[in-house]
């Protein structure tokens, strides 16, 4: 049954993804939820909580408010917190119960804007999707609400879009050929930094969660984009590297896995196929790749594997005969392998003997 998990953890959820994407941007993110989401997020899905403050809260929804749709308390509590904590903007994230009762978040945002004078936007989550979807929604909602036409352009300026600690440990990115980074969405960054994004001439989506914001900025500001990690300093779309079907597999986030497969093809000549196990895959896979969602699909797909590159947890459902190369991924194994997570920008340091 596709909905059951015997041994694999589920990926970080969409609500946590949204919070992670907005963490460093100076706003206040409110998850409309009884409890649990905030603890799950700060315990298992957020590495910055101890060292860097961020105004991420839950509403503490109770059964009566959920049943009666009591939005007044939600609005009043947010206004109080905004007055007290002075955020730069307010973002609202949804969870299962408000999703079920059809809470009008966009309407609430309008009311909040009137009452607080702050920009307010809704991030379309419901706790039933993975983090990549939540991050994607957050980046897109932020871009739509906050970005303004640029006063100037930065020649050869690029934005890094789709970077959070759920996928990445480092923002140490080298880009050659005269390119320079204008903004990072959104790791080791700031509100002021991401607001400069329209000044750039090129966007780089470094994960699938960056694609929607890149598409928006292409349409709104005419900024083109490429997909993939800029290894060896070169900006190149990973989908331009042709690969053939093989029994060597990379399981993980779509764009990162695709980029790694492209890197391996170019540096070793080996064909690796991507089993994209996160949600956003449309237009991001070659014919030899496929989407694998959930434990059962991944286990089935790996049955004939000769080599597997994946988070160590995937080893539990991998054939014993396959060579397994561990690539810990925080959005899957969380704190269990945190100390072993490599800098994805340096594949030569963690891909050995392929």
């Amino acid at each position, binding site marked *: *049954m596709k*909905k*059951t*998990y*015997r*041994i694999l*953890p*589920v*990926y*970080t*959820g*969409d609500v*946590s993804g949204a919070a992670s994407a907005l963490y460093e941007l100076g706003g206040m993110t*409110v998850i409309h939820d*009884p*409890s*649990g*989401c*905030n*603890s*799950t997020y*700060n*315990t*298992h*899905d957020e590495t910055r909580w*101890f060292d860097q*403050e*961020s*105004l991420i*809260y*839950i*509403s*503490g*929804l*109770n*059964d009566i408010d*959920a049943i009666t749709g009591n939005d007044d308390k939600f609005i009043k*509590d*947010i206004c*109080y*917190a905004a007055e*007290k*904590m002075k955020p730069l903007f307010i973002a609202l994230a949804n*969870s*299962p*119960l408000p*999703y*079920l*009762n059809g809470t009008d978040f966009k309407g609430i945002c309008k009311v909040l804007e009137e009452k607080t004078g702050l920009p307010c936007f809704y991030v379309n*989550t*419901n*706790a*039933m*999707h993975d983090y990549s979807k939540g991050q994607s929604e957050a980046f897109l909602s932020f871009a739509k609400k906050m970005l303004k036409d640029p006063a100037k352009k930065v020649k050869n300026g690029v934005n890094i879009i789709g970077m959070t600690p759920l996928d990445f440990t480092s923002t140490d990115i080298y880009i050659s050929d005269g390119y320079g980074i204008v903004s990072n969405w959104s790791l080791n960054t700031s509100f002021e930094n991401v607001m400069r994004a329209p000044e750039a001439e090129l966007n780089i989506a470094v994960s699938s969660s960056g694609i929607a914001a890149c598409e928006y900025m292409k349409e709104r500001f005419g900024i083109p984009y490429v997909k993939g990690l800029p290894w060896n300093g070169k900006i190149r779309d990973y989908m331009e590297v042709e690969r053939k079907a093989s029994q060597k597999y990379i399981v993980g986030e779509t764009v990162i896995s695709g980029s790694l497969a492209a890197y391996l093809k170019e540096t070793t000549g080996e064909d690796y196929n991507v089993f994209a196990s996160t949600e956003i895959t449309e237009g991001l896979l070659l014919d030899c790749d496929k989407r694998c969602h*959930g434990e059962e699909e991944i286990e089935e797909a790996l049955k004939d594997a000769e080599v597997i590159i994946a988070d160590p947890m995937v080893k539990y459902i991998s054939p014993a005969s396959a060579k397994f190369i561990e690539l810990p991924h925080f959005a899957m*194994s*969380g*704190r*269990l392998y*945190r100390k072993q997570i490599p800098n994805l920008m340096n594949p030569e340091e963690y891909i050995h003997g392929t």
Partner: protein
Amino acid sequence: MPTSSDDRVRIGDAEFPKPFVNGLEFNAPVHGTWNIVHIGFRIPEAHQIYICADNCLRGVVMTAAEMGELGRFSSVVLEEDDMTHSGRIEETTVEGVTDCLNKLAKIPPVVIIFPVCVHRFMGCDIGYIYKQLEERFPDVKFIRGFMDPVMQKRGTTPDQRLRKAMSEIIPSLPVDIDTVAFAGSDMPAVNNDFKTILGINGKTVKDTAGCKSLDEYLSIGASSLFICQYPAGLMATQTITKRLERRFIYAPLSFSFETVKEELTASGLDIPGGFFENGIKICSDEVNKLKDLIKDTPVAIDYTVAPKPLSLARFLLDNGINVKTVYLDGIDGSEEEDFGYLKTNYPDLILHSTIHVSDRRPVRSSEKVLAVGQKAAWFEGTEYFVNMIEGGGFYGFEGIAEFIRQMEDAFVNAKDLRDIVPRKGLGCRSCI
């Protein structure tokens, strides 16, 4: 008197039992307390199955993973289609649990099922689900858990109800008058006068918090007396003792000598002559030693360290210890008398919320603070703290004396705050 909308209030101005207004909630990065996953694993050989949405599932599955217990944990993911098709949520739950169990190498004897808020909200037919499961797996004892935090602000919490559900598989066995059980706590009884006196009385002691096998857990049904020392376990203890027609004592760790004497006496056990006098003297000597050691160092206490934080504050203040702050968000009914006493005698004592929006930016002093509990340590930013939850299984004069010794040790020996407090479930295995 109104509750405070601020993050702190003088106890002299505070209202019982809710000193603070409910609002948006912050969550401190302090995780030593137990959640329902830790509690459920207290039944040896039990398997847990959660049926919920991705984001809700993440917290519990990673709890099990960090305990190294994924082999005793399965999950069923709920998606949008489960909410929009009539009857689908029941079908997904029954078929999902069935699939989880059939994938295991061996069907476990006990399975704890955790539906969630969504099951309640949709009016899911829980009775139908268990009927189906019990027909499919007649040899399995199904425990009816719930992960429904939407209900926890009114009535009972999910962990209170889980403890009750876990007690329901304990059978009614013939009474053994020489067997007594500690029940409902997460911490096994240690440094505990009840345990000492039970030993003196030749009783066999069992403990729901320390069973090594399922048979041992089930054998608790022979106990003649149940001792509950943790508030969240009281409902479970009341229920099981009513069902089995046994006696129970409720005696959470108190720092009042009179309360200890009353509760020990009420047990009906033989108490050696001089036990009370000797215990009081040891505690008094120990607290004087603490005072000499820490002098006027500010002390902060939090509600996770012991079931009666105000009783602790009162005891320490009455003995000259400079308690400045108690971190809590509500006050248990059993502490009303201590609350009133502190309000009258120490009105400047600060009650500080742990979930208020302002807590995201705690104001920390540069002076040395002795914290009693993990949350107090994080809020005060101190490495000098007592690393304990739920009273540590302590009780009585022996418990009070050992508690003070731990304060002395904490004052002298710094701990690694950022390594310790993010770990979940103090006392459980942690693989991070």
